[in-house]
């Protein structure tokens, strides 16, 4: 059973990690596309439409990847985690239902018009479809984040006969961690997209595709990143404080903080040793963690040892994965901040624009194309592994929810998912840069999917 639990967790983690990559792109890219489209409608300048046409293809590709991997998730609740819906289905159910209904359909139905309808519908309908797709994606995010946040900070329910029943939907939806997590995720998406657009545009610029469309996309992306990075750091800090209040064990694991005390150092490097319950090779800045978490230099922070029951049951997550993924997220974030600020400064200096960017900086932008993915995944690992051993904090553990499927069966499906996901991710990244190269050579990628049919003229209806 232990093996099934671990394998099921790895399988779910693999699926949801693969899945979140693509919504992270589509959530914000929808709005960026709307921005391009509105600028085009306002100015009539072709460059905005050029940017739109390129990025709408990446959007379509990401959207398809997101949809197919999202379907996998909705089945895995049943195949691997039946206990979850049986216990908290009365609360998770309506939230998931609203996610599916209001959002999924809004996106999927209007996507056709957004992608292929530019010549078939009036301009305002096309802009409207773009808006509805972007809005649908955001609503989708909202409901999923509501459910996820409720699992971290459950409110507004009571347990009757071992099953959760909703008592206050307002408290369930606006649970304490929801606003922070929602803002943090939406900003993460905008930053991921900014760096992707900046990276791919820099790539196109470097290989000679110096069109007006590349120029506006690169500028839009770098300035957006530079503006949003500090906001994200602020929101992230607020989110951390919220976590400290509601899930202190998670914060203790993030900080690698074992014994409750004041004057807690901010640990930069350490190897947390779960068995010895201490850190090895610790390097830290004195008192800084106390200051960040309590805003006082000698503030007391709860340690991990407070989350061990009398009988020795550990009620906190494994420390090393949480500790390290948190540091990966912060490290990537700092790199993103520096790069976006330096790039913005170079572009603003003497108003040189994209020409002001030296080659090494363009290469750095290309290298950081997927930095948003790394930071986002690391952040999700921090918060999700940080909730263990709980599935719904204080209500049910992950072990209670797992299906009694034989371990070898889970292993075989896990391996096949991993192979498929590995191949698809490679193909996805390859195709993005392939399209970028093709565009830079001046080849048309406007028409796609199918060539004109060799049809009798009278068979084609008048448009």
């Amino acid at each position, binding site marked *: 059973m232990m093996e099934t639990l671990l394998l099921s967790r790895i399988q779910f983690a693999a699926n949801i990690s693969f899945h979140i990559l693509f919504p992270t792109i589509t959530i914000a890219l929808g709005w960026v596309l709307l921005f391009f489209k509105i600028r085009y409608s306002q100015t009539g300048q072709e460059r905005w439409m050029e940017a739109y046409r390129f990025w709408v293809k990446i959007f379509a590709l990401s959207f398809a990847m997101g949809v197919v991997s999202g379907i996998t998730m909705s089945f895995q609740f049943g*195949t691997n985690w039946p206990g979850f819906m049986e216990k908290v289905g009365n609360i998770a159910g309506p939230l998931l239902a609203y996610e599916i209904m209001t959002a999924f359909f809004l996106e999927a139905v209007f996507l056709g018009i957004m992608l292929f309808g530019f010549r078939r519908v009036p301009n305002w309908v096309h802009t409207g479809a773009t808006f509805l797709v972007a809005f649908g994606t955001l609503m989708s995010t909202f409901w999923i984040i509501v459910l996820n946040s409720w699992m971290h900070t459950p409110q507004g329910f009571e347990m009757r006969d071992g099953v959760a029943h909703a008592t206050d939907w307002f408290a369930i939806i606006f649970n304490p961690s929801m606003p922070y997590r929602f803002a943090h995720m939406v900003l993460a998406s905008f930053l991921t997209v900014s760096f992707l657009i900046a990276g791919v545009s820099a790539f196109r610029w470097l290989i000679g595709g110096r069109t007006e469309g590349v120029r506006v996309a690169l500028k839009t992306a770098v300035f957006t990143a530079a503006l949003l990075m500090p906001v994200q750091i602020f929101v992230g800090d607020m989110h951390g404080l919220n976590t400290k209040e509601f899930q202190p064990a998670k914060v203790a694991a993030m900080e690698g903080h074992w014994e409750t005390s004041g004057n807690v150092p901010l640990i930069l490097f350490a190897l947390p040793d779960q068995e010895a319950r201490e850190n090895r090779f610790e390097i830290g800045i004195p008192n800084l963690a106390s200051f960040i978490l309590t805003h006082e230099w000698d503030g007391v922070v709860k340690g991990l040892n407070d989350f061990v029951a009398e009988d020795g049951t550990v009620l906190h997550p494994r420390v090393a994965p949480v500790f390290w993924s948190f540091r990966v997220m912060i490290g990537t974030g700092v790199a993103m901040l520096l790069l976006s600020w330096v790039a913005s400064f170079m572009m603003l200096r003497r108003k040189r624009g994209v020409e002001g960017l030296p080659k090494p900086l363009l290469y750095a932008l290309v290298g950081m194309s997927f930095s948003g993915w790394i930071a986002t995944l690391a952040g999700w690992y921090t918060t999700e592994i940080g909730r263990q051993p709980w599935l719904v904090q204080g209500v049910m553990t992950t072990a209670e929810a797992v299906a009694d499927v034989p371990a070898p069966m889970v292993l075989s499906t896990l391996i096949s998912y991993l192979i498929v996901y590995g191949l698809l991710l490679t193909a996805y990244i390859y195709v993005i840069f392939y399209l970028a190269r093709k565009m830079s050579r001046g080849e048309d990628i406007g028409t796609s999917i199918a060539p004109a049919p060799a049809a009798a003229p009278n068979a084609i209806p008048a448009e």
Partner: protein
Amino acid sequence: MNTFGDPTIWLPFVFAGLMGLSILIYVVLDGFDLGVGVLFPFADDAEKDRMIATIGPFWDANETWLVLAVGLLLVAFPAAHGTILTALYLPVAIMLVGLILRGVAFEFRAKAPAPHKHLWNNAFFAGSLMTSLSQGFMLGMYIMGLEWTLVHAAFSLLTAVFLTVGYSFIGATWVIHKTDAGLQRKAVGWAKGGIWGLVLGIALVSMATPLVSTRIFEKWFSWPEALLLSPLPILSALLVFGLWSMLRRMPFMNDRLSWLPFAAASMLWVMAFVGMAYSFYPYVVPEKLTIYEAASAPESLFIILIGTLFVLPTILAYTVLAYTVFRGKATELRYD
């Protein structure tokens, strides 16, 4: 909340109806998408492109009905969701991999370098085939009461093949409607070849279903209940006969009635589905768990229902809009 009587009775009933409706719409709409994929090896490269163009703007929304159906099972009947999906662990996993391959192949085959295109064509076919077969297998297992025995597995393999051929049939009728000239004539041939899969499949399921459960046997063959059910086989037979005689003479002059085979095929699916729904009601897990036992708390169902009543008509309106915008023969899909 008590306006319509006991909410623990009518709410599960309404949700079972909504879930059934979603499954039915899914089977018809994604059925033709999957069928087009299954027919891929029979088409040449230019025809493949056109076949993709007939489903390009729709498949995404079509597949979403599956998400809604499973979603409703998940949120409205959580106990059944776990039981059914745990029992179907492997076919579900195969279907998911198939859906992934099929879905992404749409995008990749259009965007990847030309030499890779045939790889993605193969992925599109393989994904469609895996999805169809595993759905047919699950249908068989469901009818057999979700118990893994050799006989049940053999029966499910048969339903897997028949459902796949059935999908290819409705896929062919869709291609008849959305294309012309050579490909249309070819599709008429495919439809003639595929209709037997559907007929045999319906016959097999109809023979097996009452034999598995005496309860269903009673429902079918006792008087006067048999009278209730009798329009189904009669109408189905008429539809099959009409389809067959029409397909033999298609395509008609000036592309007249090219929509009719698809419409008739959809009706045939509706008949088969209504028959199954009638047989299995009130069970959601065959002979084990009724919709009333498996349902979520009425308060939660009510909350979901409010949203559904706003959203479902809107979704239907959107769907009609999308099909109107992309009506007529499939032409080149342009992103601009």
